[in-house]
């Protein structure tokens, strides 16, 4: 029993969120949210647009507070915030266009007053890891959408977070680039052993990436209706029969809760 408790990285108990100030009769975006994610797990939050999955991710990130309920983040860090890295949907709005790729990646280290030489070294490690070799001195505006998302990922990873929060990071990419990035993400996840929470509205992407899929219902009062296990080895083949079976099952769940 004790063992399973220490394994948990993120726990939400009976969480709810409202943006209204009318306390008498508020409308909840999220209600009765229960969530438990294990350390090192790849967890996908799947739901239709506007169901509040981004809001939930922002709550886990600490950008927003729960109105009701409890959020536990278990990291080995003293400062909780350091344990969580956030990859935004739009690299254009999240990256700093006046900094080079290398400067963007070492931004977090600079904020912690890490000396320049060490910063360069760390940045280089993550430039290699994310496949950005040869782009270090470029500015984000001179990179393609997929490359920009790699920069964002590298920038977050350079702070060595234990938990990686990703808000539809490949949503704006073309199909080919998205597939490459999905494979890259799985490789990086395996190499770094991070706990990942990945938000998407794409069932195929959810099954391709996740070990567990939390399927959310339509808002308001949306919650995680069911947690679906994907017992398929990586790398996953989207054309395989097993994959298709999983797809059908998730699709059925999805339709149950969203229509």
């Amino acid at each position, binding site marked *: 029993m004790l063992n399973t408790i220490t394994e948990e990285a993120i726990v939400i108990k009976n969480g709810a969120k409202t943006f209204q100030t009318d306390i008498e009769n508020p409308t909840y975006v999220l209600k009765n949210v229960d969530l438990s994610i294990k350390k090192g797990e790849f967890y996908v939050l799947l739901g239709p647009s506007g169901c509040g999955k981004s809001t939930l991710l922002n709550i886990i*990130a*600490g*950008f927003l507070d729960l109105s009701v309920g409890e959020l536990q983040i278990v990291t080995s860090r003293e*400062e909780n*915030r*350091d344990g*969580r*890295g*956030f990859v*935004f949907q*739009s690299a254009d*709005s*999240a990256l*700093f*266009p*006046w*900094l080079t790729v290398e400067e963007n990646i070492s*931004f*977090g280290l*600079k*904020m*912690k007053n890490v000396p320049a030489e060490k910063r360069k070294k760390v940045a280089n490690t993550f430039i290699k890891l994310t496949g950005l070799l040869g782009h270090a001195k470029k*500015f984000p*505006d001179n990179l393609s959408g997929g490359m920009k998302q790699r920069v964002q990922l590298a*920038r*977050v990873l350079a*702070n060595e977070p234990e938990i990686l929060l990703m808000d539809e990071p490949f949503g704006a990419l073309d199909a080919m680039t998205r597939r490459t990035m999905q494979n890259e993400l799985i490789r990086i996840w395996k190499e770094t052993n991070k706990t990942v929470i990945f938000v998407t509205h794409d069932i195929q992407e959810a099954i391709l990436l996740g070990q567990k899929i939390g399927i959310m219902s339509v808002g308001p009062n949306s919650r995680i209706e069911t947690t679906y296990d994907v017992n398929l080895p990586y790398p996953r083949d989207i054309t395989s029969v097993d994959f298709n079976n999983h797809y059908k099952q998730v699709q059925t769940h999805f339709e149950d809760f969203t229509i």
Partner: protein
Amino acid sequence: MTTIELKKGQQVAPVANVKKKSRIGKLILQSGIIGWLFILLVWQIASMFSEPMFLPSPYLTLIGAIEIASDGTLFLYMGYSFLRVLAGWTLGLLIAVPFGLLIGTNKFVRALFEPVINFVRFIPPLAFITLFMLWFGIGEQSKVFLIVYATFFVITINTLTGVLSISNDKLLSAKSMGASKFQMLIYVVIPATIPYIFTGAKLAMGSSFMAIVGAEMVAANEGIGFMIWNARLYFKTDWIFVGLVVLGLMGFIMDRIFAYTGRKLLGRYKVV
């Protein structure tokens, strides 16, 4: 589809020629020479239908310019106007940028000052000339402060707009990477606002010239504004035209130098 086979040594000369021609044409077009020539032409034609005292020709204006330039008066006046603009504009920039950053980043300060700013900024600098003379005397101070006033609002409002248009994702990501409030100001807010500050400073240069000419007409014994105002006493209409051309030239050159320096030094911030 047809394929043209070339013999050994044969060149596709006509195509190259066309390219070259269009490049020269492009250069002429980009230099803006055609526009200048057109204005000169219109001016010349108009002056031929008029009296020199009413509308002197470009040639007579040039003669007039040489006349006031020969004893150095023109350059002295240009120097006066230029230094006043430079002093007031620099001072205005130094006050307006921090103020713009402050009201942009602090909701309380913004709520306090924004309505006042939007009231006062509609009072033109020229309306303050007499008051500034009363307060700061007839020396350089009153003129410099007038330009500070003329630049202040443009730069403040541009800086404020810049701060308010920073995407929330940038601030959140900096925060989640451990940036303190001060670090966010230095490493995110200011860099992201630089293009707006730059545009504000450029626009303010224009308002500075408007203010300085007005001030020199009313209360100065030197400067281009004084020259234009004084010319009426001697019916020297050509001097007025010299003044106008010189003002345009000074502004044009300052703007070009400023834009060039900006692109060289602040290129990574995408200033335009």
